């Protein structure tokens, strides 16, 4: 089976200078990627998730032929990203930094025409394609077609940037934080288009984001990347399954002025797991019991609470979110830790 994107042991190091004074500096090597490997199929949206500095943009840039790796190998549509960079450029649509990337004095339409010409699309074909993309991205409805770029809102800029990525109708899309800072309608529009392009047109999409909610709804598969390594890979559901003791029992109680700390201490001992106070009102508290087997603790929890004289208002079992998984696996301060 041929993959749209293949990365094998990609390594990238940046050499920076650390200033030690006016004239003294030392070279510092930063390992941005420490040998990451993954594959992306046609018709699939793969999310690259990770904290700042994890190596997401570096990965996208290597695949987009904008960065030469120090080790490893990658291909897009079967073309080597280093040896066949010009061929790779013909099959990719790239969206980096939605805030900029166009000429300020040109209108939205003129900017797209400019890049269409630069990409070698003949003028008549370019005009037709630009009109199609303006409609697709609803730039005409926003009045962005004949407005100069420097007067664009962030939402308009992102839509225009996405339109440029689609100019050559490429089979592979490399999107770096395409909805960062966008208003909800623009973000929703881009997410819907990404999903549609993968499902209906079979495009392969590599999508970086910080937004866990977005990753859950857009991506078929997620790669969690941290400190230059892929720490987990799978569908959002698979990743959530992997997370131990993160399901939680959330219980809301009426306290009648009783000692809350005593209850929490007693519950911790009785249930043998962490119990957190997540909400505290005058007479009402909400507790979160973290466990991998919530059903097994239900009886003990309820009996302890009732014996101590508390009245239960509500009780529910919460599934982990992708954000919980992300924090847990990337070593952030997770609730379970």
């Amino acid at each position: 089976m041929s993959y749209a994107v293949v990365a094998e042991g990609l390594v990238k190091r940046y050499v920076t200078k650390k200033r030690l004074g006016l004239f003294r500096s030392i070279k510092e090597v930063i390992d941005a990627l420490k040998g990451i490997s993954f594959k992306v199929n046609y018709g699939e949206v793969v999310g690259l998730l990770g904290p700042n500095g994890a190596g997401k943009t570096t990965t996208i840039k290597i695949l987009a032929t904008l960065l030469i790796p120090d080790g490893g190998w990658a291909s897009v549509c079967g073309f080597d990203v280093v040896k066949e960079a010009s061929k790779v450029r013909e099959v990719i649509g790239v969206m980096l930094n939605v805030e900029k990337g166009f000429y300020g004095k040109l209108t939205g339409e003129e900017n797209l025409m400019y890049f269409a010409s630069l990409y070698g699309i003949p003028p008549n074909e370019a005009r037709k394609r630009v009109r199609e993309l303006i409609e697709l991205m609803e730039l005409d409805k926003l009045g962005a077609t004949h407005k100069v770029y420097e007067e664009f809102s962030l939402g308009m800029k992102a839509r225009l940037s996405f339109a440029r990525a689609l100019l050559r109708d490429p089979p592979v899309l490399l999107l770096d934080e395409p909805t960062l800072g966008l208003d909800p309608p623009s973000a929703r529009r881009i997410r819907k288009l990404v999903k549609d392009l993968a499902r209906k047109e079979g495009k392969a999409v590599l999508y970086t984001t910080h937004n866990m909610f977005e990753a859950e709804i857009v991506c078929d598969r997620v790669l969690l990347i941290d400190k230059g390594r892929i720490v987990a890979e799978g569908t959002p559901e698979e990743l959530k399954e992997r997370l131990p003791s993160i399901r939680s029992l959330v219980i809301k109680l009426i306290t009648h002025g009783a000692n809350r700390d005593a209850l929490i201490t007693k519950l911790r001992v009785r249930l043998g797991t962490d119990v957190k106070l997540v909400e505290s009102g005058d007479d009402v508290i909400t507790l979160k019991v973290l466990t991998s087997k919530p059903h097994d603790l239900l009886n003990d929890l309820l009996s302890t609470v009732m014996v101590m004289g508390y009245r239960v208002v509500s009780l529910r079992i919460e599934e982990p979110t992708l954000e919980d998984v992300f924090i847990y696996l990337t070593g952030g301060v997770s609730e379970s830790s």
Partner: protein
Amino acid sequence: MRVLKNLLNVFRAEFMLTLTDITRRKLLLITMIAYPYVLAMFIVLIGSSVGSYSSFKLRLGMDPIPFFVMASYLMMTVLGVIDEVLWRPVHDSMIGTFTYVILSPINRVTFYLIVPLPRLALSTLLNAPTLLPIMLIYYGTLALLITGLVVSFALISAFLMISFSVLVLGTFYYLLGQNWRLLNIVRPLLLIVTGIYYPRYLMPLTLKLISTLLPSSSTVELLYRILLNVPTTTQYVLSLIGVATALALIYLPLSSLSVGAWVRKSLIRGEVS
């Protein structure tokens, strides 16, 4: 055929970009038209306060006012090419378009060779008529001929400077990184060695030798020799044309090498943004 179509596409795109830039920045348009006169006025004022109007005329054989208007026009045209080439990657990096230039299928050297052409064409078109009034005042019926000669030589000189500019771009950006301050260093140096404000045949030998390395300095010298009636043999005229053309051609493959090295270094270091 496909390559030619691509080149034409890029030229068209760049022409549209330059035209909109000029027409939508009214101040830029006014500055472009007024520049030769403003600069000439400034130089003549300074010059007349430290030197003599008549001794200039005696030494050069031309009145300082039309000379400096003409020289400023020449400088604007020739340095405009260098500015356009050297400034473009810095500007593109600042506004985030450099990435997409790199991602385009057009060869980088070809792109930077095409970049200055639209502005050169437009500035010539816009500025040529501004030369005519001053030439009419000083040369009467000969004004049209002189203006035509100056405009033609300015165009040729600027055109011959393109490969040199791309060579400077590739070499300096490879060695020093993309930095707009480079322009501030290159501009005054070229201002001296192009022989635009100070004719090359009057330069000391060392400076003259350095000046010879610039293709446009030969064409500028030829223009001045014609305008100032400097006795010149046909052989010397041919040698000036030959040197200018040969240098422009020699710089082409070198510029390709230097731009290739600079882009590769940028791709390794992750400086493409």
